[in-house]
């Protein structure tokens, strides 16, 4: 298997994506001057890496054999049935990144970033933050294999929620820093990681989504796009066409960009799904775009952010991986130029979808993936177009959610 090569479709200028109509800028590098040299070094290393054929060949070899990036597309007749039957709604395919090593889409970026950190940046230590601990788990795995130190920042609430993934990160040898500040979730964890980087400028910071100061959003989506490049090729092989629609959940946007990026210039209609928490009108949600975000500047980048006056607002959702009051800058840009549409799913809908997937598909999805499956079914039902081929990103496996979900099941039966 050969991974289709990367083509830059949407390059930022000096770290910014620019809306041609409004001239709004997205991205940038808003960070203490202390870290500016580090960011410049990361950018240089990244440019060097993607041009280094030997490095890329070795990296892709590891992605194929260690991460197992050549995961299947599963035609789901069961979901078609639920949406009204293939004859009414077309075909539904699931991209199975739940089958990756460490059970989510995250390891493709995590491993690539760490591999670059080891061989080009020459770092001895990696610092990262994590929400659902999917990112930390895969960074820690990469660090174990690459003999690097690993420091993980996780919010105290998440450390409880996804303790399995956190424990696995620890088994891999990561040092876990539990963050008790502010919302005790992904956002303060990322702030904490960036703060730690300031104290350890020799380390490399590895972000878990298409967020953070430039060049991270671009770098992460470039690494992660391996997933979408393979998926696009597979989809064409199976159906002869690119997908009619693509559905991905959106926390920061890494799994979205991993799949959407190679399809940006295609006719595929792209949907990003946010967590509506207890319902967007309640204010208790994790929906950045649909929850009334404004442009803001945090954690090193400028993008859409949910705020309460100038403070970053709490994001509230069952899914630790979606508990992020912002989206990556390229995602905000793609929303604003209307290339990506947004939908949402409430926590309750997602939890029911979790049980449904277990009982009807024989798949334990990451709770994050349940938001997208639910929203995709709603949209596909509505479209009622039998000639369409739908693609849903099943971006993770839910072992870490079992504890909470089995309680939910027992309470609701």
């Amino acid at each position, binding site marked *: 298997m050969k991974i289709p090569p990367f083509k830059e479709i949407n390059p930022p200028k000096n770290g910014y994506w620019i809306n041609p109509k409004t001239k709004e800028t997205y991205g940038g590098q808003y960070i*203490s001057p*202390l870290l*500016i040299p580090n960011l410049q070094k990361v950018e240089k290393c990244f440019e060097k890496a993607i041009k280094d054929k030997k490095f890329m060949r070795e990296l892709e070899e590891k992605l194929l054999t260690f991460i197992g990036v050549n995961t299947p597309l599963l035609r789901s007749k069961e979901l078609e049935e639920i949406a009204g039957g293939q004859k009414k709604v077309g075909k539904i395919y699931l991209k199975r990144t739940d089958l990756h090593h460490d059970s989510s889409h995250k390891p493709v970026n995590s491993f690539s970033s760490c591999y670059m950190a080891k061989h080009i940046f020459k770092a001895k230590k990696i610092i990262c933050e994590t929400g659902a601990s999917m990112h930390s788990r895969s960074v820690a795995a990469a660090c174990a294999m690459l003999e690097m130190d690993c420091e993980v920042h996780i919010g105290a609430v998440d450390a409880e929620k996804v303790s399995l993934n956190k424990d696995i990160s620890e088994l891999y040898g990561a040092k876990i820093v539990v963050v008790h500040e502010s919302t005790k979730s992904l956002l303060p964890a990322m*702030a904490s990681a960036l703060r730690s980087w*300031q104290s350890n400028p020799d380390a490399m910071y590895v972000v878990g989504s298409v967020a953070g100061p430039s060049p991270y959003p671009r770098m992460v989506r470039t690494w992660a796009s391996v997933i979408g490049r393979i998926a696009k090729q597979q989809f064409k092989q199976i159906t002869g066409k690119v997908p009619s629609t693509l559905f991905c959940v959106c926390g920061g946007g890494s799994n979205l960009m991993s799949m959407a990026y190679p399809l940006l210039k295609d006719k595929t209609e792209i949907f990003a799904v946010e967590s509506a928490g207890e319902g967007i009108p309640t204010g208790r949600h994790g929906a950045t775009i649909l929850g009334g975000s404004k442009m803001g*500047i945090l954690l090193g980048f*400028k993008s859409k952010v949910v705020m309460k006056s100038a*403070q*970053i607002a709490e994001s509230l959702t069952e899914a630790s991986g979606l508990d992020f009051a912002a989206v990556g800058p390229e995602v905000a840009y793609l929303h604003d130029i209307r290339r990506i549409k947004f939908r949402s799913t409430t926590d309750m809908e997602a939890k029911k979808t979790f049980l449904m997937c277990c009982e009807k598909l024989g798949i334990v999805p990451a709770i994050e993936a349940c938001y997208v499956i639910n929203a995709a079914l709603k949209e596909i039902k509505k479209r009622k177009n039998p000639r369409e081929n739908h693609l849903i990103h099943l971006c993770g496996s839910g072992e870490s959610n079992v504890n909470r979900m089995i309680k939910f099941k027992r309470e609701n039966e």
Partner: protein
Amino acid sequence: MNKNFQEMFAKAKQEKRGSLIGFATGMDPNYKTSKKILIEMSKHCGAVEVGIPFNTSTSDSSTIMDANMRAIKAGANTEKIFKLIKEVKSKIKNNVPFLIMTYMNPVYRYSIKKFAKKCKTSNVDGLIIVDSNNNSPEDKELSKELKKINVAYVKLVAPTNNEAFIKETLKKCSSWIYVVSYAGLTGSKQVNLGNVKKISKLIRKNSKIPIGVGFGIRTKSDVSKVIKIADATIVGSGIVDIVGKNAKNHNLTKKIGSYLKNLKKGLNK
């Protein structure tokens, strides 16, 4: 150069000493106490730095993060901090310059133009934005606006920055430049004199701008060492610590006063 800062540095020079700049988060632990604290600080410091708290700060140690959270809980926002500074400045008799220290988001959300104007009308003398990148459109706009109205734009340089970066920074910097003494967070480590010397040399090579050194300065002896190299020194966590531990103590301002008085003994060149 902002007039008040000009005077501050001139007077210090005359007196053969350095300047002490004290930092406290605005409205920590609440509006009323904060006002007293700032007034007290203005009695002992050459300048006073007031933080507009930001809950997603990327450069503050837990001491300052805690102060931020206390202030936010007490209802702090940009508007109120401006009001606080304006009131404090109207109460004090001297011309001690006041700076705002914050992150880009509060400024950006307030609107950069409005923020600059508000500095002027609130008698704010200078502004420090920890995460403002020289090359961002916001930084460009902000420095332009501040220059117009003679509010100092104090920029940070850190031990990891090279001469090119320092040169670029100097172009925008006004009144004085803030040297971060080590790679790390406010108040998280001991001041690193080697770093300070190295960066100061690079700055002196390119400019005559006064140098203030911050991060890790807590004791009279820290102050004394730093002042041998720099023009001013910024003390933050040391003060914020006292606020955090004595928030409900009616002796709070006194404690801060005597802490600062002691530090001042280290200011002589």
